[in-house]
């Protein structure tokens, strides 16, 4: 599974980021840097990850660290595979 491609598609579909997503790298900051990533955005991304991977994410696993950068969110997805 191409996690980078999947995550870019999820961010684009749920946060209205348009073409900007294409240039995201591991270091691109997310939480606190993107006004689109509000509480609803975080929850919608968590749900999208669950639906696309067919996994369950526990409440305890939802943390600010995972949403810090594009790279940390990719790592989080990898941990759910």
């Amino acid at each position, binding site marked *: 599974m191409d996690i980078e491609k999947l995550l870019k*598609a999820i961010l684009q*579909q*749920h946060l*209205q980021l348009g073409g900007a997503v294409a240039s995201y790298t591991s270091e691109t900051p997310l*939480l606190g840097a993107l006004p*689109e990533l*509000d*509480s*609803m955005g*975080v*929850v*919608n991304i*968590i*749900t999208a990850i669950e*639906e*696309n991977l*067919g996994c369950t994410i*526990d*409440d*305890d696993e*939802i*943390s*600010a660290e995972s949403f810090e950068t594009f790279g940390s969110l990719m790592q989080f997805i990898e941990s759910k595979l």
Partner: protein
Amino acid sequence: MSELLFQNIILQPKYIKGAQGNLFSLFSLPKDKEQTIFLFLPSFAEELNRCRVMVAMQARQLAAQGYGCVLLDYYGTGDSQGDFSENHWEQWEQDVDSVYQWLQTQGYHNIALWGLRLGAMLALSCAVKQPERYSKVLLWQPVIDGSVFMTQFLRLRIAMLMDRGLKKETTQEMRAMLQAGSSIEVAGYEITTQMVQSIDAQKMLGYLISDKLPIIDWFEVTMEEQGELPLASQRLLQTWADKKINYRVHTYTGPFFWQLHERELTPLLIEKTLASLKLTG
């Protein structure tokens, strides 16, 4: 895009008497009383607000084809009377019944249900209980499990606490607080015990769909063209197929317009919805 908007078609504000108070709706007349009038059932909390532009656009498209529409604000939401904390499943069913009865008194007997997300689940629940009442059932992005939906909603509070660096809570802890009878605030909405428990109890898998029900038109977004539905939807629809329940799936690609801040249109969904009305069966 401008031809999709049909700004010249006016959706008229209308108050309909509900069991607890006046229900606000936007109303457009069908071209004649035999033509279908669609009762739109919105989703829950913030999703109800975020889908308004898209729903109004679909309503205008339907009007342009001669169909009527009633876009309902449930009791305690939007411009209807009541407070949000009074929302719960049985109240919504009551609202649907109030609008249905009102349409009957106005001489409209060809009434269809059209719902989005939790509203789609409600549409099916109402149609299952009174299948002879409705001529069509259109489900946009249906929620199929009330408690999964509610957990996703309660997570908004986790995300808010996380964002503000406050102490973590789990959805189990929130449910325990609700169980004990206290309400909690999620994303600015007052969430009550009755609200959560009545939504938690809804499972589409348990709905007893009789053959009196019209064909169910199911619309769901996929990540890519011709992509597969989410696993949960696939599983439910497989049980319907096994039981020979009549349904049609219409997939489309586009933004999740019920989640987004900025107005975003999904013309493909509107096209597919209109096309579905031309199918027979």
